């Protein structure tokens, strides 16, 4: 049993204070990072509740319910930013990175506190896999939204399609790492390989919309 709310307060307060002193892109990133951590806590509540209501155990909740809830909740702040502020592509990508990184950081903090941090190898794998996975799924989603938003005919189906794609990616990762053995190794490598493949279009991605 860990007190996730207390951990969130402990990590968020210094970041929140720093918001007053930073400006420009740094402020946007820190704010998105905080939002990402908050989203992580809320999605843990909702996943837990949904798992309980549907009668699934912890493992099955992580495989079937969490990807849908986590990706939807990460998508909502991004959609809000897109709809209200209509930012340039670089700002949208920065915010998506912040949300993804904040989410992954808080999830890792809670996991380490619950499971222990004795094995450096495991911690490294966890950091490289989960950390990269949340960032990759957010970049995919943000890039999709940035491309699609100006084309009215495809905007709704395209954006929901991109969201469903990121859910599927997350669900496949969770399924692969749920069992010990070769499948978990494939699962751990999957986000890093995707990140490398995604870096090519990301580099060429236009900053302005």
């Amino acid at each position: 049993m860990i007190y996730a709310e207390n951990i969130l307060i402990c990590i968020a307060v210094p970041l929140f204070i720093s918001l007053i002193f930073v400006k420009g892109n740094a402020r946007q990133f820190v704010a998105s990072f905080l939002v990402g951590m908050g989203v992580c806590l809320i999605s843990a509540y909702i996943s837990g509740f949904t798992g309980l209501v549907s009668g699934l155990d912890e493992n099955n909740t992580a495989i079937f319910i969490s990807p849908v809830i986590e990706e939807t909740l990460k998508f909502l702040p991004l959609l809000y930013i897109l709809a209200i502020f209509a930012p340039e592509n670089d700002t949208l990508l920065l915010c998506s990175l912040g949300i993804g990184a904040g989410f992954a950081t808080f999830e890792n903090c809670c996991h380490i506190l619950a499971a222990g941090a004795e094995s450096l190898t495991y911690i490294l794998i966890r950091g490289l896999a989960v950390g990269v996975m949340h960032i990759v799924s957010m970049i995919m989603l943000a890039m999709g939204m940035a491309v699609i938003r100006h084309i009215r005919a495809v905007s709704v189906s395209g954006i929901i399609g991109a969201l469903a794609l990121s859910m599927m990616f997350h669900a496949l990762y969770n399924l692969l790492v749920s069992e010990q053995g070769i499948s978990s190794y494939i699962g751990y490598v999957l986000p890093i390989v995707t990140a490398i493949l995604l870096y090519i279009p990301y580099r060429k991605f236009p900053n302005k919309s």
Partner: protein
Amino acid sequence: MTSGWSNIISVIHTAVLIITVFGSARLIRKGKKVLITVFFTFAMVSFLLSGLYWIAYDLLRPETRMPFAANEIGECAGFLLLAAVVSAMNDCNKGVDENSGLPQKSQSAMKETIFSVLFTISNVALWIAWSGEWLEDIIVGGAFGYLLCVAVRALKQRNILTNKEWFICGGACISLVVVQTISFFVSQRTHTALDIACFTLLAVGMLYFIVRVIKALKNGDTAKPFCLSVAGFSWVIIAMYMNSGILYMIALSVNALMMILLLLSLRKEVMAS
């Protein structure tokens, strides 16, 4: 035995999807209609992830039934992104009116769209009656229905089917729904006979679309093949969702073929632009 065959066909289907993803990624590098090819690649990646999820689940938990078919999220993504490809392509192909300078008004496809919505609702009702998983079926049905509507509108607006063909398509759809509904109220023996009759009708439809796509590709037609292959793909999806066991595997094999035809017809349309 059936499970072994099912796994082999799933692996072949996934291998075909990997080829399709690489093929469409190469199309992006050509630099023509980039948005359309990007959407198409994303759609194929969604189907690929869905297929991989299915295989991984089968290998990791062979005895456990999925409490929630997470791979269907990938299928929904694929349907929506493929629908986005058809919509974007339809928009690109609209000509400009010489007098007003405005985009040409497309032929109305209201009747066909309403019919496809009704057909989707009937199918979703049948899926729910078979599986009992109403939430999943409604979500997948919504995404599939959208793809069907977009495909039907594109077929109508590009004048690809004749009136006679529209009439036969409508008749086939109504027959499918009616026969499948009747099969709930008859004995097991009659039920099997009706299932086989329905599959025969679906198989004729699949064959028809495959032949039409290949013919259109051979004739050098650039506008027709992609719309026809999306319509054919939708028909194959109906065949897959309406059947189980060996009939499902046959439909899955045809689905792999449709993926290749989708890529070839998209390539034709993109290269012609």
